Structures are given as structure tokens and as C-alpha cells.
């Protein structure tokens, strides 16, 4: 689709849809100027176009053709776990019995919703080795903030006000330091060692009585398992801190090991990564947060509880004096939780163990297939994702990671995550996920090897890529210097 799509505001206006969509008003409209007073009312109508239904449909349908989704082809965006989003889960989330319930309905009228959330909590407790989950956070980073707030509340409840430092590895996602900073923590960075793992000696030196805790991703953002995780969480606990598990890479460990058993006190999940809920071009997500019992008093409220008198009935408990409060309105991204629940039901214990197995197997296989074509910075065995770099291509042919990523688009594949983690130069992070097909894996490997060859023979092919999309490379500097953010 090479043609340009106008903005919706540029379409010729053909009249309004109001009478087609809405019923006629069956009460008399009062004189609004009299009721509200002129000073409150708008003088002119809104400046938004009146369009016909077919105009709107064509507009957005044509725009959608300029997007790439998981159903188009491999989407090996590392750390994002772009696996298949089961269709039936969309149908389930849209069941009218879920869709048409208001968040403030009396709890006796939403027992189906509360049962689902309660069951999902039990499942997640099992899968991650935690004691409780809250579904209030709307996304992974929101979950991080919620978890960090609970850690802060825990230290405050112990009158431990001097614990103001959060330890974070230099390979961490940017959200970790950003979330900790929102809760007023000072960030102390821990170095990675030559193998790409937390440098435990460096960690020991950075532990003192000011630490509130540590935020760790495992497997880490280099796709490597932190083997010394038990020692790390032990050291933190000994020093009076708590351990936070960033669940971004949980797809690699499903039913193999559990953050709870690694010694973590708080866990957040990105359900679009681990449990296949669609990412929607940026959201909506859900970021359930799991905790160990010591943090229970601080959970956001309300908490779903079984009724004492009748164990088959659920209520929302607001009477929680030590709660951190609320991190958003109502109980959370409910319909995203419905999809998560349906996903877990589709797999069961054995199935989830196969998810992590397939995720790791696919990453390992792909890495071996391209190992001779690209620089591999770390030799520890990769888990569900791996990093290669454009170091060789850059040195010899002036080809950078961006060029390789953009050339992959010409082959019909979504690029990997690029230039992350920040500690690796020219990084490309690939995560094929558990639902990648054989032909997808082989095709990706063939394309990457072919691109490495093209870099030697015809570097311009890479530098000018992509060649077949609706646009060529956009000028991002211009976008930031002279921001045009609306029309």
C-alpha cells in the first residue's frame, strides 16, 4: 500500500450520521441557555468533521493496511514477546455478560467477574510462587510503580525512613529507574560482568543500610538467566531490603522456575507478553502485581475476598487501613484479565511448561542459525531471546543496526528490538516466541544471513531500506525540532 492516506480532517464532509446512529430524543430538550446560562455554553459548534460511515471505514481500513501485526508474519521484537493472540479470547472478553457490567454495580450482581478474578489470582499465585495478586495496575510500568510503592509503604510501616536507595542493574529496562524515581528512590546502578550477569561483587559493595531493595529481571534483558539469583536475593534480604522481580521476561520461565522460589517479594507481569493478550499498538495492557504475605497489608484497594459466611461468594474489601490506596479508578483492566484467564485455561500446567520450552528452543535455534553472520556479544546460553550486533558490519561496511533492521522489513519481517540494552553497542535483540512457526524461524534465519551477505556486496541496499513500505525512512530529527503534533 504505497498511496498516501489523507487525515480524517481532510475528507470532504458529506453530512452527519447522528440521525442514523442515535434514536430521536423522546423527552423535550429544555432551553439550555436558560438552564445553564450563556457563560457556560459553547458559542460555536466543535470544529470536528461530519462524515459518512463508509468514509470512516475506508479511512481506517486503509490505514490499518500500513500496519504490521502478529498475523502478518514473524514479529521478533525482543523483550516484547509478540506471540500469537488467540482469537477466541477476544470473543470471550466481548461476551455481553462481561462487557456490559458497570464497575460500581453491587458485588452480588457481578459474581461472575469476581469469581474470574479470584480464580486468576490463584492461578498466578501458583505459576509465580506468590501469595496474592492485584489486578489494579493498567500496564507493566504501572505494575512496577505499584510494587515499588508497596516496598516503600513496607519500610515506612517499619519506621525505616532511611531506606531511600533502589539497586538496579545497568542492563535494566528504563522503566525500572523511572518507576523507582516516581516513588522518590535514589537509583544506585549495579554493573554487569563480562558474562552479562549481575556482578555480585559490585552488588556487595553497593549494599548498605540505606537500601530499600533491588529490581531485577530474570532472565535479564540480555536474555541470560541470573544463576546467582538466590545469592542476590539473600544478600538483599540480609541487608533488610526487599526484592522486586520485573516479569518482562517471564515467558522464559513458565513452569520451569518461579520468582517466589528465587526469593522475590514482589512481581509484576505484562500479560501481553506472557499470556498473549494483544498489544493494540501500545495498549491497553494489564500489569498484575504479585506479592508475598509480608506485603499484603499494603495492596491497593479494593481486594477481592471470599465472603466469610459463604465461601462461594466474593466481595470487594475496602477496609484496608495500611493500603497504598488506589493507582487508578476501579478494579483494573478487567477485560484484559478475561483474556489472560482464557489463555491460562488453554494451556494448563503442562502446556505452560511447553510454552517456555518452545520459546527458549526457538530463540536458541535461531541464534545458532545466524551465529556465523553476526557478532554475538555474550556466550552464556540464551533463554527466550538473544542479542547479536552489527559490530562486524559497522566496522567493515559502515552498516549500522538500523540498516539491518530496516532491511528485514523488505523481507517481510518485523525488525528486532534495536539499541537495547544500552550497555551493548549496535544491539539487536531477537525474541521469536513460542508461537513462531518453522517456516517463520527458517525464513528469519535465511533473511538475516542474506542481509549479512548483502552488507558485503551492496551496502546501499541496506542503507536505503525499507524499499516497499508506504513511506521510506522518516526524518525523526525534524519531527523533534519542529514538532507538528496535531492539525
Amino acid at each position: 500500500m504505497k498511496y498516501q492516506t489523507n487525515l480524517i480532517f481532510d475528507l470532504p464532509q458529506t453530512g452527519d450520521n447522528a440521525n442514523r446512529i442515535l434514536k430521536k430524543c423522546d423527552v423535550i430538550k429544555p432551553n439550555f441557555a436558560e438552564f445553564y446560562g450563556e457563560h457556560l455554553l459553547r458559542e460555536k459548534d466543535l470544529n470536528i468533521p461530519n462524515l459518512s460511515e463508509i468514509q470512516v471505514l475506508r479511512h481506517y481500513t486503509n490505514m490499518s493496511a500500513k500496519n504490521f501485526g502478529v498475523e502478518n508474519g514473524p514479529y521478533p521484537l525482543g523483550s516484547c514477546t509478540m506471540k500469537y493472540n488467540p482469537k477466541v479470547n477476544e470473543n470471550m472478553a466481548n461476551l455481553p455478560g462481561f462487557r456490559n457490567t458497570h464497575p460500581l454495580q453491587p458485588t452480588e450482581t457481578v459474581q461472575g467477574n469476581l469469581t474470574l478474578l479470584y480464580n486468576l489470582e490463584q492461578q498466578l499465585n501458583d505459576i509465580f510462587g506468590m501469595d496474592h495478586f492485584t489486578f489494579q495496575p493498567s500496564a507493566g510500568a504501572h505494575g512496577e510503580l505499584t510494587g515499588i510503592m508497596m516496598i516503600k509503604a513496607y519500610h515506612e510501616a517499619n519506621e525505616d525512613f532511611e531506606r531511600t536507595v533502589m539497586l538496579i542493574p545497568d542492563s535494566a529496562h528504563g522503566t525500572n529507574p523511572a518507576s523507582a524515581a516516581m516513588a522518590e528512590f535514589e537509583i544506585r546502578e549495579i554493573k554487569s560482568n563480562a558474562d552479562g550477569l549481575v556482578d555480585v561483587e559490585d552488588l556487595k559493595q553497593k549494599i548498605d543500610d540505606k537500601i530499600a531493595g533491588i529490581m531485577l529481571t530474570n532472565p535479564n534483558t540480555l536474555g541470560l538467566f541470573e544463576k546467582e539469583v538466590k545469592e542476590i536475593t539473600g544478600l538483599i534480604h540480609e541487608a533488610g531490603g526487599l526484592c522486586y522481580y520485573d516479569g518482562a521476561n517471564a515467558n522464559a520461565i513458565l513452569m520451569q522456575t518461579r520468582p517466589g522460589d528465587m526469593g522475590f517479594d514482589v512481581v509484576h507481569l505484562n500479560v501481553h507478553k506472557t499470556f498473549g493478550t494483544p498489544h493494540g499498538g501500545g495498549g491497553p495492557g494489564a500489569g498484575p502485581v504479585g506479592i508475598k504475605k509480608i506485603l499484603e497489608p499494603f495492596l491497593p484497594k479494593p481486594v477481592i475476598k471470599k465472603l466469610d459466611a459463604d465461601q462461594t461468594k466474593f466481595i470487594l474489601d475496602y477496609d484496608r487501613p495500611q493500603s497504598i490506596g488506589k493507582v487508578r479508578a476501579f478494579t483494573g483492566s478487567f477485560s484484559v484479565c478475561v483474556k489472560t484467564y482464557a489463555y491460562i485455561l488453554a494451556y494448563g500446567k503442562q502446556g505452560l511448561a511447553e510454552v517456555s520450552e518452545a520459546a527458549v528452543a526457538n530463540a536458541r535455534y535461531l541464534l545458532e542459525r545466524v551465529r556465523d553472520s553476526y557478532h554475538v556479544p555474550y556466550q552464556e546460553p540464551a533463554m527466550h531471546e538473544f542479542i547479536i550486533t552489527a559490530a562486524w558490519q559497522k566496522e567493515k561496511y559502515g552498516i549500522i543496526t538500523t540498516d539491518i533492521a530496516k532491511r528485514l522489513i523488505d523481507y517481510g519481517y518485523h525488525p528486532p528490538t534495536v539499541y537495547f540494552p544500552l550497555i551493548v553497542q549496535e544491539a539487536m535483540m531477537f525474541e521469536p516466541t513460542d508461537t513462531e512457526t518453522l517456516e517463520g524461524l527458517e525464513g528469519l534465519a535465511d533473511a538475516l544471513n542474506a542481509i549479512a551477505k548483502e552488507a558485503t556486496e551492496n551496502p546501499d541496499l541496506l542503507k536505503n531500506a525499507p524499499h516497499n513500505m508506504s513511506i521510506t525512512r522518516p526524518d525523526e530529527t525534524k519531527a523533534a525540532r519542529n514538532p507538528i503534533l496535531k492539525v
Partner: protein
Amino acid sequence: MSGYIPTSREKRAELLESVGLKLDNLFDAIPDEIKIKDKNFSGLNAQGLSEQEIIAQLTNLAERNQRVDQYDSYLGAGFYDHYSPAVIDHIIGRQEFLTSYTPYQAEMSQGTLQAIFEWQSYICRLTGLDVSNSSIYDGASAAAEALLLTCRQTKKDKVWVSEGLNPEYLATIKTYFHAAGLEVEIGALNEQGTAAGTYPSGDDYAGFLIQSPNFFGIVEDMRELVKKAEQNQVLSVVSCDLISLAMFKSPGEVGVDIACGEAQPLGIPLNFGGPAVGFLAAKQKLMRKMPGRIAGQTTDTEGKIAYVLTLQAREQHIRREKATSNICTSQALLATAATIYLALNGRSGLKEVAEQSAAKAIYLHNKLIQTGLFEAIYNKPFFREFAVKLRYGGSLDALNKKLLEHRVIGGLALSDDVWLLAVTEKKSKKAMDDFVALVANLIRHENVLGG
């Protein structure tokens, strides 16, 4: 092959062997002491369920709920049951919008990026402000982020919030501000249920925030907010309702610095409260301090118009702990849904939705007062929601319980005797007439209020 995994274990083992690896060694990096050995957990099935079984289980759960399309509901208080045109689900169900990631690779994401750009444009046109972000979790977190923005901009650490704000939003602001070590001062409403005359003085505030229409449905006069804010060198923030802006003056028109709120009323299903979609818009001067993703227009190497994520120097993946917020998720798909709602309804449709909602709320209010059983708690004009009080006392909880037996979900009981009721354009005159008659009958003849 379990669930949706497309390869068999045998094939997987074969693939790995072809490159010198073994299926059994995949997890060798995990120390034995933390490997799961006993998978005998309580909450999980051993085996996955078939698609048919999943449908049966979830349908059963869904049917255990009572729903607003089968009951006559008067709940609002932040989430409103407006009509969602059929087109919306069809478009946002397209996998190209549904399954794609945050548009980091612009060449492969022009659909999402243009949709966000159009959302930003609509939000600016509705709120009358200069810059909008690509959306934010919900109305409550948008209010918290808006106030944090005032603190960043002014380098002051205290804000003032009118109690006319939705209590769920207020609770969220308190949580965010406590964690950040910042102070929230709450201003009680005046006797007429508005913020007029309640603003504090002093230049130690970063921002003043009011909601309009406020929690009791009353349309606030934002002029005083702007005046007081300017006098005290404070940023003004309004948490507003986008549908109401088809009728009322916009925050930007009046001179407000920041508008935020919840866009769920724009055709997003209730879904038991989530996902929601918050918006945040501000004057130009605040652009580089905004939280969240922002899409911008630029050109490609051939000069064609292109869209990209921009002003990323504000964000966590670049600035880490110095970022304007930790937020990375937008509600892109729902923002797109809301944009389609605005495109389909247009200015005429949105105005009609607003006017019908207001007209019906006024109708219901008057009918309830005419029964002689209720009185208005405030006599200021409201939009689609209002609070009434039982004239002779009693328990609204008991009334609400009784109403359920008649397939009616009553208003929100704010206390024993104060009832908050909301209606939208979907509500019919007949439903309201029947409701008022039922309420009057239950109180007069069945003594449901007790006493």
C-alpha cells in the same frame, strides 16, 4: 503440541539437534534448587482446555453477572453507558491495529501512528488546548500525571484539588503524591456544590485542579479557576468530560493550562471498569514536560508525509530515572476506538449525544423531585448526572436492593440518603417513567426505606 504452539516436541528436538543442541538441556542455566520439581499446584489444571471448553467455562461466568443491557441502570460516577456504534468493534478488531506493538518501527506502523496523530488532533480540538499525548491509563492516573506535570513545571511540591473531583481519582492522586513525597491539599465544595469561592491563595502551589462536570454532575465555571490560578502563579487543571465539551466552553477557550480526563464515554464498553483510556492535553509551554508517548508529523527521505513517535527525550527508555514519567503503555487501541467514535458521530452527533444526555438527566431529576420524596442537594445546573437526597431519611441501600429484584440497578448511594444518578442518550423516557413510578411505589407502599 499444547495450546497455540505450532511445533511438536519431536520437531523441536530435531531442530535443536540439527544445530548441536538438546531439548533436555534448555534450562540448564537454572540452578536445581529453584527448579520446579513438584508441579502439584492447586489452582491450575494439568492439561489445557479445548476452545469449546473455554467458551463453556467463560460463558458460564459471564452469565452469572447481571448486566446493564438487561437491567435498567442509573450508575455513572466516572463510567457511562453511551451507545457504541457497530463500526468501532469492526475496525479495532482488525489484527493490524489489534496485535501490533508500540510503533517503534515507523515504516511498519503508519496506521497506528496516524491514528494516534488524529486522536491528538481531536483531543486538542475538543479541549481547546495545543498539545495532547497519545493517551494514558485512565482518567484517575491522567489527573495524577497532570498534577505531577504542574510540579515539574513550577518546581513546587504542593497542589490543591477540589473535592468535586471523582473520589477514585482523588484516591489515585493521593497515592501517587504520597509516593513522590509531594503534598495534596483538598478543598471542600461550597454550599452549592461547586468550587466557586473555595480556591486558596498563596504562590506555594504548583497546580489547582477541579473537575467539570464535577462528581455531582454540576458544570463548573472555569473562569474563576483560571483567574485564581493566574493571580497565584499556579497552573490550572481541569478534569473534564469529552462529550460535555460538545455543549460547553472548552478548558482551552477559558484559558486553562491542562485538561485531563477519561475518554471511556466515547463508545468504549463498560467492561467492569477497564481497560479505560485517559487523555491529557496542555498548553504549548508544557509540551516538553508532558508524560507519555506523543506522535508527530514529519517527512520521509522522499518528502512524503510520515508519522513518528517524537519528543522521546522525555521518556524512560532514554532518560531512565530523569524521565517525565515511567509510563510506556498508551491505550492506543482504545484511543483509536474513541477517535472512530468522534469521526462517526461528528460535531452534529456528539452535540446530539450531549444534548440528549443532558435533557434526559434534567427530565429524570425533575420527575424524582416531583414525587415529593426527594430533594436536590445542590441547585446548580448539571450535565448527565445529579445527586438527590431522600426527604424523609431512610436507607438507600435497602431501596437499591429492592430495585434489583425489579431488574433495576439504582443510582450510587453516596451515603444513607444521597443518591447519585446518571443517564445517557440511551435511556428512554418510558424507562425513566417506570423507574420513578417504581421508586415512589416502593417507598410509599412497600416501606422499603424502613422506619
